[in-house]
């Protein structure tokens, strides 16, 4: 059992590799953001904003997952994860600037054009809709913008605290930093749980303002677990492949991250998704089934099946065995697949929407189906290049931000008091 860190300074720093990461990230970001802006006028404002929301929801899911992982390790005083924690911290560090991504949406909603994205921000519609009026105390532009500012600020503060102390500990090796993080982690997780829940409601659930599900915050949490754990595995595999990290991250850590991906990103996700669907399907109350209606129609029908098979069944069968998790190449390939599925999932959450008018005014389900088939009612199926450029741009920013956050510090918390445990750790 080896408890000493066998890695050169070069192996423990991004160095030249950081430039590559930044290069790829910035290139993606420039192409993505540039492409999105170029396509914006031809795609139309509504398509642009929906694509923007899709990209933002996905990027936040990954980085919030990183924040969750970091805080969780302090709460449970984990030993095994010390060497992989910095990777998650790099993702969480993005939250320090990602509030900027919320600014355009705040400007949009505050400026009175929120109806391009959200029906509840459409004053004409609200004036005629009893339900939307009842919800207006929560779903109104002012309060929505205040909430966005609050989320952005809380996440930035949490990220600054947990990432900052961890990186500072590399230099001073001060054990009291670990104690401080341990002490505040429970409060951090409470803040995280509440903000993440309401962010999911505000960004995504309120797209179809008549619909509601108490499970929705938990679902977005499961989504962010998938995105974050898969991203962490890919980043670590790339680092490892580039000769970084020495003995700090080994088969055992990939194995354990694979278990996390399996448990939270595959099984827990499926459990939450199934429970939400099954209860709504079984009770069959129109106001609730309205959300699943477009997701079982037209092209989205196939997207739903892609999720069931590609996000649950296939990865379940593959990841349940021990060996795929123990080969960095194999687990990285699976993680890449899971990131793809994660993006499909966010797309599936954000894109399909039936206008409230159509939902309320259809006499029967069959009438609504007929109206959709006749093309009178849109279910939001609108694949457009701008969605690709938006997600590429934002993920490029996340990657560049990750590399920027880790540009000077070590890739492993080298003076974390529990580092020897992570090095000695074995899956027996």
């Amino acid at each position, binding site marked *: 059992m080896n408890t000493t860190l066998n890695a050169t300074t070069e192996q423990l720093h991004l160095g030249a590799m950081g430039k590559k990461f930044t290069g790829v990230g910035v290139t993606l970001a420039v192409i993505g953001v540039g492409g999105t802006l170029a396509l914006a006028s031809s795609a139309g404002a509504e398509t642009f904003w929906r694509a923007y929301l899709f990209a933002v929801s996905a990027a936040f899911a990954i980085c919030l997952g990183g924040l969750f992982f970091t805080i969780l390790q302090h709460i449970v005083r984990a030993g095994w994860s010390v060497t992989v924690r910095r990777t998650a911290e790099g993702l969480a560090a993005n939250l320090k600037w990602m509030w900027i991504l919320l600014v355009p949406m705040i400007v949009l909603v505050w400026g009175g054009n929120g109806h391009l994205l959200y029906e509840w921000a459409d004053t004409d519609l609200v004036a005629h809709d009893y339900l939307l009026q009842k919800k207006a105390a929560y779903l109104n532009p002012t309060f929505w913008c205040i909430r966005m500012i609050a989320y952005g600020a809380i996440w930035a503060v949490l990220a600054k605290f947990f990432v900052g102390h961890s990186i500072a500990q590399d230099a001073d090796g001060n054990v009291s930093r670990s104690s401080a993080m341990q002490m505040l982690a429970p409060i951090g997780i409470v803040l995280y749980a509440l903000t993440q829940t309401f962010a999911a409601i505000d960004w995504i659930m309120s797209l179809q303002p008549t619909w*509601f599900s*108490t499970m929705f915050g938990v679902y977005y949490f499961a989504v962010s677990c998938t995105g974050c754990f898969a991203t962490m595995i890919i980043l670590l595999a790339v680092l490892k492949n580039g000769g970084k990290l020495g003995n700090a991250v080994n088969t055992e850590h990939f194995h354990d991250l694979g278990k996390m991906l399996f448990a939270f990103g595959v099984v827990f996700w499926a459990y939450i998704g199934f429970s939400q669907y099954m209860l709504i399907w079984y009770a069959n109350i129109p106001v609730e089934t309205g959300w699943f209606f477009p997701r079982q129609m037209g092209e989205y029908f196939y997207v739903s099946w892609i999720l069931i098979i590609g996000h649950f069944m296939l990865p379940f069968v593959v990841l349940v065995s021990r060996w795929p998790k123990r080969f960095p190449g194999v687990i990285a390939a699976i993680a890449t697949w899971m990131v793809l599925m994660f993006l499909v999932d966010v797309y599936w959450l954000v894109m399909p929407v039936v206008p409230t008018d159509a939902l309320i005014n259809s006499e029967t389900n069959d009438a609504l189906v007929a109206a959709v088939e006749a093309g009178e009612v849109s279910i939001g199926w609108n694949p457009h290049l701008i969605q690709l450029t938006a997600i590429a741009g934002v993920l490029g920013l996340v990657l560049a931000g990750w590399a920027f956050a880790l540009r000077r510090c070590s890739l492993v918390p080298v003076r974390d008091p529990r580092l020897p445990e992570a090095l*000695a750790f074995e899956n027996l």
Partner: protein
Amino acid sequence: MTTLPVDNPMNVDESPDTRAPLIIGHESFDTVTAEICRVNEAKKPPRAWYIAMAMSVSLLGLLGCMVGYLIFTGVGVWGNNNPVMWGFPIVNFVFWVGIGHAGTLISAILFLFRQKWRTSINRFAEAMTIFAVICAGLFPGIHIGRVWLAYWLFPIPNQMDMWPQFRSPLLWDVFAVSTYFTVSLLFWYVGLIPDLATLRDRATSKIKAFSYGLFSLGWRGSMRHWHRYERAYLLLAALATPLVLSVHSVVSFDFAVSQLPGWHTTIFPPYFVAGAIFSGFAMVLTLAIPARELWGLKNFITLRHLENMAKIVLLTGSMVGYAYGMEFFIAWYSGELYESFAFVNRAFGQYAWAYWIMVSCNVITPQIFWFKACRRNIWVLFVASLFVNIGMWFERFVITVTSLAQDFLPSSWGWYEPTWVDFVTFLGSFGLFMTLFLLFIRYLPVLAIAEIKAIMPAADPHAHDHDEEAHE
């Protein structure tokens, strides 16, 4: 890294660069064996055991009388009425099933999470699980009216070609609970085998040697035995893990698949699971605190174990609080008249007292565990655990009764009042639970001897190469 001295009486203060020992006061394996086996090998149990046993058996007798009275008279002896068709029986069923969750969580999920402190509490938490599920199974069994036809709950091929309703979550419950019971029992038994062999080897009478020998299945402690044992244990842990989630999820479906306001809400499955773990850990605390005092197990169930459990109680209690809050928020957000009414009525209607007992016991009480002083005070822990048990019973009462008593049409509203038979039957179920539990403490190894040895520094093959990390 350095380790704390082994005789550190508190065993709770752990700075980030140390790991506190998991058990205290023992350097070698044989003192561990001796200290745990003392519970079973003592000539007489402590006087408190006799008093508790007398009370438990009396309550068990009362339960028998009540069940007999019920069978001879009919379900009318209960307070169940129209519209509250489900009264105490379902409330008690869910209460007991919930308690039955901690054992498997500790033995399976904490095992997979490598939480080694679990070894000091897993054995009796698992035992508690099994006894709680037995108590739970009793209530639907006697609620069906004609108890002699209870086997109709199972889809048994028959010449009348009559089948249970496969679309009913009540039938899924039959499958979920019986699977859970079977796997928990197997898990418990597999874990017991090496320890039963220990008791067999130490037995002083032929009867003891024979009976422990019979159930230890010829265990000799050979390498091959251990190898198979560990594999079986890991596989059972992996099988039991989804069951921890599935059982209470299915129990929550009993309510949530309906269209009834207050029952039909999508967060029910994880919310019920969190609540179950919450109540289960509270019951483990309620039982562990007196047990460690009476049988001198404080070296094994240290203050740190109790503190860890308090933290889990705080976590799951807050999750339950999150669910209450989310239900309330969404009931308002939905804009649905009946949804909002159901929740406002819970808080301010005719059953408001039950609702506020629930909130104060389940959400407010655990918040004291934010403070170290409360987590480390035995009396506070014990009283809080009782409050949580009470609160979780009331949670099921609130969910079941308020939603049924007042739903859509005011003309069909009603008022539910349990009868004395309801109360005494519920009280009697504690007799069943405690009788089984006390017998377990007396005759079976109350802590997992072999597993505790495995987490001692002496069991670490590298302990001598790297002394500083003996407590990995």
